[in-house]
């Protein structure tokens, strides 16, 4: 005998489930809520705008000519005429700093993209596939790590000429190794975790496991490596200029400004301080963006 089933009081059920949104909508929403990350993004946009508009700013007279030498006022401190002082040839530091953003930001950011593409892929394949594939790829990175990169850069630049493209190709191709080993180490450990095992058990494809489980969980250390890679690439560019195979003077870049300023560190410590400050701001902004992105991508914090 069937029991009378009371009609469910439909109206009283709490339908207040969170609104279903897609992964990326949610990521974007959570990213916007992170104040530091938004501040970082704003600073990066300002820096990029500065790099793009430096020429325009000079034309309307807001900043001076970055390569015009005022030999009567070399190594001056900040003044009304030169807001951030002048360098050892009497060139306006503010203007050089703003023009320098072009090369330094391009190198700093694009080189990281090369690291991610080459290093991230190789590390992911090696860690996930394991076995012989891992061994061969890692011995390859051992070789790559060991041969002298200075020679490699010299050869590359002498074959292709000291253009911006060959310089960042050289820096990127030489230095992806660290990221590869880092990603591989992370993946070796993460792929044995229970949630990856369950994903495999329910028949997720390799692609989906990598994208949904390995990438988000390996992200934290990768972001740190990339943000530290920005100043490192900027300094490498300067080292190459110093050896005569980088960007040729008088084109300003932050790394070269630091090296020039270093030569006169006793006379005017300002000339080292300003570009170092610019590099610090850039790096800090990117690490805020990176941290915000990682939090936004963390499935445990999803709403």
């Amino acid at each position, binding site marked *: 005998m069937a029991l009378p089933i009371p009609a469910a009081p439909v109206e009283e059920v709490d339908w207040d489930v969170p609104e279903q949104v897609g992964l990326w909508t949610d990521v974007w929403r959570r990213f916007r809520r992170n104040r530091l990350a938004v501040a970082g993004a704003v600073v990066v946009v300002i820096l990029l705008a500065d790099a793009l508009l430096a020429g325009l700013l000079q034309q309307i007279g807001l900043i001076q000519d970055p390569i015009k030498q005022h030999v009567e006022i070399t190594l001056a401190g900040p003044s009304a005429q030169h807001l951030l002082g002048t360098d050892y040839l009497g060139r306006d530091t503010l203007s050089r700093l703003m023009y320098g953003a072009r090369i330094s930001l391009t190198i700093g950011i694009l080189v990281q993209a090369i690291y991610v593409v080459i290093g991230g892929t190789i590390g992911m394949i090696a860690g996930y596939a394991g076995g012989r594939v891992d061994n061969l790829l890692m011995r390859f990175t051992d070789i790559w790590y060991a041969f*002298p990169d200075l020679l490699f850069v010299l050869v590359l630049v002498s074959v292709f000429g000291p253009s911006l493209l060959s310089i960042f190709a050289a820096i990127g191709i030489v230095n992806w190794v660290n990221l590869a080993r880092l990603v591989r180490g992370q993946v070796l450990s993460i792929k044995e975790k229970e949630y990856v095992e369950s994903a495999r058990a329910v028949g997720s494809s390799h692609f989906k496991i990598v994208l949904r489980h390995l990438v988000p969980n390996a992200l934290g250390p990768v972001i740190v490596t990339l943000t530290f890679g920005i*100043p490192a690439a900027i300094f490498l560019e300067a080292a190459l200029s110093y050896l005569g195979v980088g960007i040729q003077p008088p084109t300003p870049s932050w790394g070269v400004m630091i090296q020039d300023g270093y030569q006169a560190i006793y006379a005017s410590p300002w000339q080292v301080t300003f570009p170092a400050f610019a590099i610090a701001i850039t790096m800090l902004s990117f690490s805020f963006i990176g941290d915000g992105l990682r939090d936004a991508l963390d499935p445990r914090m999803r709403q």
Partner: protein
Amino acid sequence: MANTAIGGRPAGGALPVRRLLAPSSRGAALTFFVLRRVLWMVPVLFFVILITFLLMHLAPGSPWDRAGGRQLSATIVQNLNVRYGLDKPIWQQFLLYLWNVSHFDFGLSYQYQGRSVGSLLVNAWPYTATLGVLAFSLIVVAGVGLGVIAALRQNSRVDYVAMGFSTFGASVPNFVVGMLFIIVFGVFMYKLTGGAYSLPVSGFGLDDHLIMPVVTLALLPTAFIARLTRASTLDILRQDYVRTAWAKGLTERLVVLKHILKNSLIPVVTALGPTFAFLVTGSVIVETVFVIPGIGSSFVTAVLSRDYPMILATTILFSIVVAVANLVVDVLYVFIDPRVRLT
């Protein structure tokens, strides 16, 4: 004991025997793994030498471009080439070099005439290695310590100070830091205290000469390791098992050491491997700023003046240290996270 009794097995039955065997078979697997990797170093070294050899000869310029500070006549260059075996076809030079290296003969340096590369390295490496090992210890202690504290007290004042320090460490290059140290601790302190307290700015001995170079050398890696530790510790802090560990009422010390630190160390250890290799084979900048007779500076001058035997020998040394450091890292993975399998 109780377990075997419940299963009805006689004492010393299948289970205990397997337990006795397990560690030794894991030990055997480890030994096998290490042996195989050491053997793999031979082909790795071969390719490193091959690539370096090719790059050296592809790079523009010859060893005699700067010799004596002037352009040498064609006859002299010809004679020098014959003297150092550079007149032979490149594949013959390569094979000859391999043969010599397998007998630990690294040839004669071009830039320091009449001295063998082997003796140069043996004299210079101890300075570099001392510096590197000390800096490395500082990096491990300060970097991991700062990173863990910053992560545990996320968004506190300690965290911001650690973050600020690491940003400074990364955006001010080595040579500027070294120079600042010299100005502050060498010159300024000397003047301030009338010469009573200051750090030596040049010369090199195994005493307070080491302080400034070691700190300078360690600054950037410490900053990096601190940030890496912080990031990976933050990842681990959010894991369910850490919440469980806190909920069980374990002490902070136990949770941090056993549950958090052990799991967050994988990326840190990965990064420390190559860092060690880099440090003990020399930093050009620090050795130049503090006038240290190590191998870092001789390597860069070797590349710039195309001192082929010197380039090859330092590269071989570096690649051996890198390969060993990475091998140690791979073995450490297993101890940090027993789920990781040796392949």
